């Protein structure tokens, strides 16, 4: 019998009911079935008042939740993806891009800019899953890099809120290069002794998890968020292993030592304020 060289014992935990409820109305809670008007959900930070389920938050709304009113100054608005490989799967990449821009009102899957959180100056980089699944191509990589540079220039911490399905395949090998690119930007940020906090929101996977998102001085997440390099479906298909109920969820990541904390959304802003104060006092 072959001896396992790596301890592949698996812990099984109960999985919180956190399916994305594909097909249902976006304002219907996939966990308890309650339905809300959009303004109700917005007023409650997009957390289900009934059961605490954390709905996804779009980038601009996340910024409104976190930044002190009127402090956010967007940067690098003008960046747009190119189509260097003339990529064509079932549809051309250019068409997918145009459609994403129209439907989201965003130039790509990340918004960056300067801001203040609880009166602490910082730089914000917020991803939006609605733009092509939050995938990271040349524009996301460049924006994260510019956000790091902007933080370095102003000697303030960087706060990144991630939500991503991974690298943007349509940019081929260039999308893989956004991993080392963002890593290098964060290393420059570290050399400049600027703090770096990452908030991993649902889902943070593949190329984004395997680059800047995992490099925070402090890494926090939200309840029930999927944080995995390889998602459950692919793991299941590849290995035929029975997956633990909480496979890849924030709760599992905390138990295995990959997260500093899981914070309900309402506690996120005060937590960031505290962290930013600590970085400022330490300078």
């Amino acid at each position, binding site marked *: 019998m*072959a001896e396992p*060289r*790596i*301890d*592949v014992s698996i812990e099984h935990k109960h999985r919180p009911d956190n399916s994305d409820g594909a097909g249902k109305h976006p304002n219907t809670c996939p966990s308890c079935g309650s339905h809300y008007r959009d303004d109700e959900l917005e007023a409650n930070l997009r957390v289900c008042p009934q059961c605490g389920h954390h709905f996804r938050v779009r980038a601009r709304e996340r910024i409104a939740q976190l930044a002190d009113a009127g402090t956010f100054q967007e940067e690098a608005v*003008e*960046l*747009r*993806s*190119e*189509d*260097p*490989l003339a*990529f*064509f*799967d*079932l549809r051309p990449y250019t068409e997918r891009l145009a459609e994403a821009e129209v439907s989201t009102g965003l130039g790509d899957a990340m918004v960056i800019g300067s801001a203040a959180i609880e009166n602490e100056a910082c730089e914000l980089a917020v991803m939006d899953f609605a733009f092509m699944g939050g995938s990271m191509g*040349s*524009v996301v*990589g*460049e924006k994260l890099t510019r956000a790091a540079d902007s933080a370095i220039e102003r000697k303030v911490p960087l706060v990144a809120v991630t939500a991503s399905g991974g*690298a943007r*395949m349509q940019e*081929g*090998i*260039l*999308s*893989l*290069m*956004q*991993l*080392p*690119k963002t*890593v*290098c*930007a*964060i*290393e420059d940020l570290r050399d400049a002794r600027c703090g770096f906090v990452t908030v991993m929101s649902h889902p943070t996977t*593949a*190329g984004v*998890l*395997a*680059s*800047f*998102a*995992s*490099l925070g001085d402090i890494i926090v997440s939200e309840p029930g968020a999927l944080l*995995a*390099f*390889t998602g459950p479906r*692919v*793991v299941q298909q*590849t*290995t035929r*292993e029975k*997956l633990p109920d909480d*496979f*890849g969820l924030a709760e*599992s990541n905390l138990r*295995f030592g990959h997260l500093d904390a899981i914070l309900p959304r309402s506690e996120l802003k005060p937590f960031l304020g505290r962290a930013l104060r600590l970085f400022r006092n330490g300078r």
Partner: protein
Amino acid sequence: MAADDERHLRERLTKLRGLPLLRGTRLSGDAKRLEQQLERIEEPEPSDQEIWRSVDLARHSERPYTLDYVERLFEDYVELHGDRARAEDPALVTGLASFRDRTIALIGQQKGRDINERTRRNFGMAHPEGYRKGMRLMEVAQRHGFPIVTFLDSPGAYPGVAAEQHGQGGAIARSQALMARLTIPLVSCIIGEGNSGGAIAIGLVDRVLMQEHAIYSVISPEGCAAILWRDDAEKVKAALALKPDAAHCLELGVIDEIVSEPKGGAHLNPDEAARLLGDALGRTLDQLSSVPGAELREQRRERYRRIGIYTAGATEPALRGGS
């Protein structure tokens, strides 16, 4: 040359030239890469058949693996084992060795030749423990000033439950971060499959050498087909769309040099393949060894910071590529 071909080439050249201009800085290594890129531009773009042939040859079951090159190129090889925490991962081999009178640190993905070795080495797919073993070796190399040579040849980081629980994503991120901090020369040789995070985990380096029939891609053709075509039988279409072949990687500025293989592929003459790779590696290490460590690191970071093709609207028209 037909007018269409010429227009096509010019478009590609424009796009290509946009690349080193993106952030305005020029690197010492760029001149050579750009030169090779421009030489290449005179050649026809690889045909669909040629791209798919590379995918086939890169994964050929008799293609030389990392340890086949170690045996042929290095002396006094001392293999080092274990992540000093929880496990020894045979999917990624590490060691110290002498290469042309210079001590180097080796980190290489290792497939298995027969079914037993394949199983033992998990088909070259590392767990986080493997990347942590690699990081341990990077620290040894940094301490002593040994250049690091990495060999990329793996279907990818292992997509298993334990690998996830033990932090696959974080391990890949931190391995790259460590490479971005080192002040010693770093060279990668892509000798087979360079796939996704599993490859870049040990691929953030000063110079990337890629064998003629190796591939380098953000995802395997099968994986891409499954996601975008929802049918992994469409792997050929996916491969052609991803363009993971050496010619395209050079054109995109992602690698620095294409290393020739013996006619028909490295597996037909491993000794000759090793000689060709060894010569390229030797030249590259000679070049890098004259650069001070702090400068190496700065250039390395700048290299990656500049990679990407995008437009910046009206405010930065110089960035606009072709088409």
